[in-house]
């Protein structure tokens, strides 16, 4: 019973705040609603007994990505400004499209997921098992994707620095020319 109450609180929070995050008029409010959605999702992971995923969600998403978003908003906007929107026709069309998709997929889920599951009453998943599965090279173990992700992170750091730095190529070329002369 307690679990059902907590789940319904989290579900209502997710539904409400994710709709608010895409309809809010002020950009900083959208970011804060997104933060609430991410934290409620972390709560859902906790209800599924995935404690490691909960910790990753809170630290990476709610910690790292939200700081990136908020810093980007502060760098490029006046946070209280009211945002422009698409015209009315496009607004109605995309609302029809997304609610139609919601109804269709909801119907499919409610009709077809009759396959019942075995929800074992296991306690918390062992951290040692997660570590072994992440660092092993055998079947059902994930060392190669883990290393690929680390390379991808490195590439993204370099790429982000390359894209976001100020271009001073022209000046440096001029300086070099002056030096040569």
């Amino acid at each position, binding site marked *: 019973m307690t679990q059902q109450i907590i789940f319904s609180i989290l579900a209502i929070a997710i539904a409400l705040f994710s709709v608010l995050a895409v309809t809010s008029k002020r950009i900083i409010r959208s970011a804060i609603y997104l933060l609430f959605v991410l934290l409620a999702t972390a709560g859902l992971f906790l209800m599924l007994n995935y404690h*490691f995923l909960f910790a990753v969600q809170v630290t990476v998403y709610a910690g790292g990505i939200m700081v990136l978003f908020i810093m980007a908003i502060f760098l490029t906007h006046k946070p209280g400004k009211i945002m422009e929107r698409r015209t009315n026709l496009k607004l109605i069309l995309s609302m029809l499209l997304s609610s139609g998709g919601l109804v269709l997929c909801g119907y499919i889920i409610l009709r077809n997921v009759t396959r019942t599951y075995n*929800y074992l009453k296991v306690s918390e998943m062992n951290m040692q098992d997660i570590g072994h599965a992440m660092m092993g090279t055998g079947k059902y173990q994930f060392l190669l994707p883990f290393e690929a992700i680390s390379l991808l992170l490195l590439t993204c750091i370099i790429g982000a620095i390359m894209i976001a730095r100020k271009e001073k190529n022209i000046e440096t070329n001029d300086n070099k020319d002056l030096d040569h002369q």
Partner: protein
Amino acid sequence: MGELIVNTSGGAPIPLTAYLIVSLIMFFAGIYGFFTRKNLILILISIELILNSVDINFAAFNRYLFPDRMEGLFYALFVIAISACETAVAIAIVINVYRKFGNTEVDNIQQMKN
């Protein structure tokens, strides 16, 4: 379709469908925002909503259908890492766009090179 297996434990307090419906609402909210927003950062926020809803699906399917395996857990972890990468690069691009055009509306960006 309509495959019916008897619930072996009877201990699941919340049905799998509830998780799927929650992530479905989040997904289509993200789709709606992706279509209606004009601002690059808000489009990025919508994409984060979509990715996050997929994470919920991975974790819930893994927990309910194959509770002794960890594939869904690791897929969710890798999706989180990849979305962190994607956000970092995209925000670098947004800042660069702001530097060139003075705001971050998508309608301004009509040519890749100026």
